[in-house]
């Protein structure tokens, strides 16, 4: 022995995972279907007014579990443009900003749902993703399904053809054997049910030319993961925010950034926790989001970095992703 500590390392041999700025809380100021923006059935000023009464600074600081003086919170809205987008950003964005402002709210970021399903481009190809792969494809590859009792690894995990559930499905009728008496119906079972099952089976995607049609709850899961700052492609942030000028907006959503930052002093887009203030009709969607989030295994380096930073900032943070997601559901 030489008595000298020799450390040899190659930079390419270690992961390089970029940390991204984090707020304490990402606040989603409602969600509207495109049809409602088109037909004007929702009075936007009243709508944002109801949201504002749940997003006061004291309430947000309390939810973020930090003192009000320290609170970093950013606000965002996700535009539902994936299925159809008869109105472009030049019409929708100014309307949202004005209505929010009339209720005393500032929108910091506006995102488009279609961005979660749009090709990632160059960085995706480098990462071994097919050329047209999207954020949704990336998140689907992170799903580690909750195993049913008896799953020991001897077979490949069941591929559910675009469905994800929280337990064991009721056996299909097709399993009934010929010439035998019909098998009595058996109920589905929720894994880790609390006495009784609440079985949930969620459509993730459907094959529809020219490719996959992603479900709304799954894109909403991608949206939550973006807001929680947990998505990376080859260690780089999967999406970066782009500044936009509200006086010079494109007419189509494809020309609009996936996440746009409006002028102002916005806190970082991603956050330790999220709060979504939504109409009560979104309960099923968000139930599906929580279930799906609970079966997503993000890059352990990212997960560790986030927990370590929260520890340094003395922000209490649950390790489980679904526990970082909060909701306020408004009645009719």
């Amino acid at each position, binding site marked *: 022995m030489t008595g000298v500590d020799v450390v040899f390392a190659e930079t390419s041999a270690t992961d390089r995972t970029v940390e991204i700025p984090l707020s304490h809380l990402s606040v989603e100021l409602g969600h509207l279907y495109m049809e409602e923006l088109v037909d004007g059935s929702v009075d936007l000023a009243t709508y944002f007014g109801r949201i504002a009464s749940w997003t006061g600074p004291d309430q947000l600081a309390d939810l973020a579990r930090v003192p009000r003086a320290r609170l970093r919170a950013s606000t965002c809205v996700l535009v539902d443009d994936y299925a159809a987008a008869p109105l472009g950003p030049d019409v929708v964005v100014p309307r949202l900003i004005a209505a929010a402002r009339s209720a005393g709210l500032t929108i910091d970021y506006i995102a488009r749902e279609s961005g979660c399903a749009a090709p990632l481009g160059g960085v995706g190809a480098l*990462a071994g993703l097919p050329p047209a792969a999207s954020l949704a494809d990336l998140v689907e*590859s992170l799903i580690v399904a909750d195993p*049913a009792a008896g*799953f*020991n690894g001897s077979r490949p995990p069941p591929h559910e053809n675009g469905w994800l559930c929280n337990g064991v499905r009721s056996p299909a009728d097709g399993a009934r054997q010929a010439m035998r008496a019909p098998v009595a119906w058996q109920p589905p079972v929720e894994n880790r049910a609390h006495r009784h099952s609440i079985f949930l089976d969620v459509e993730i995607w459907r094959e529809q030319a020219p490719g996959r049609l992603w479900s709304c709850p799954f894109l909403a899961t991608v949206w939550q993961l973006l807001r929680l700052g947990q998505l990376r492609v*080859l260690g780089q942030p999967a999406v970066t925010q782009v500044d936009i000028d509200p006086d010079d907006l494109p007419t189509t959503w494809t020309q609009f950034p996936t996440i746009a930052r409006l002028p102002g002093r916005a806190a970082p887009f991603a956050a330790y926790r999220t709060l979504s203030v939504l109409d009560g009709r979104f309960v099923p969607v968000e139930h599906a989001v929580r279930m799906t989030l609970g079966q997503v295994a993000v890059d352990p380096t990212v997960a560790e970095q986030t927990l370590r930073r929260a520890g340094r900032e003395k922000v209490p943070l649950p390790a489980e992703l679904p526990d970082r997601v909060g909701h306020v559901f408004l009645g009719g």
Partner: protein
Amino acid sequence: MGAEGGGCAEAKDATSAGGRSDVLVGEVRTGLLANSRALTEPEATAVVALSPGSQVRVSARPVPHAVSPGLTLGVHCPVPSASGTRRDGLGTVLSRASLTSGRLVQASTHARIVLGGRGSVIEGRRPWAHHLVHPGTIEVVGRLPADDLADGFLLTATGDGPGVVLDLGAVCGRLLDQVQESPILDQKLPFRARRTRFRFVLLPCRHTAAGESFHHSSAGDSDTTSGSSRAPGHVCRVDFVVADETVRTLRMHGSGLSLVDVVGLCEDFALHDWLLTTVQHVVAGSRVRAGGGGRLPSQLKPVIDHLLHVWMPAARVGEELLPVWVGLEQRAGFSRQWESLVGWIRDQLSLSLLAVLGDGAR
């Protein structure tokens, strides 16, 4: 054969005191890559880019090495037990595939099995998200001695058919197949070589107090980080068994070790064991046919082309685990055997050169 290091005294089994204990179990399968030539670094990277968006770790020294990102799989089944005790485990196993020198392929799968002691039965079932926070950990409800689990795991061949017990062999075998079926590979093996299976367990040192474990927790194990520095890890006992032509088992007792490093050691060990086994097999075959007028036995050529330069024992093994290599070298004489085989091959090469020169002079 066994190698005892560190002068650790035999003492009461750590698991008998009713505390929680952890056992690391894993399997490594090693084989020759189904490609006629060595892969370049970009090709090797593409072959093991198995998780979209995640990074492949590549190193060039001392031999090119590319490792896939960790792949997580959920399991909910009984864990192995030599006594046949049925204890259900729930959690995930971690796998990764690696290519060495663009010619050898390995798949490895492991899990840290957390055994509940008396009175520490996990209440109910935690949400699945809890298990995803600690990838590669299986929590077991109910008491099971660590040695019972380790024996059950090492002695039972898995991956060969349906069973009910945790089947790391099947997970590992599927991953190796997946890599070998990569469209980047031409499916032409330069020569025939068998796959080896290398099963390993890491148990707490027998003299550690109950509840102490063989590993140090990472920052991700808790919500906050503690600034305390840890005691250096060490290994107190290693048993390596060549069970049959293709199956090897390694049983280690240690404390304060990084599990990632232990898995890395086992992969490195399995790789060198495969090299030794394969070259030994080829040499044994050539010896039978040798003596044909000083001509180089034809089956030696691919070995010289593809394997001899890959021997780099302990190149990626951390400081704490180096004594394991040293101990095994002393007892099992890996490098001595390798050098003797390589020496014989070189002698054959020299003899064949002399024969060629002699032919030319005539």
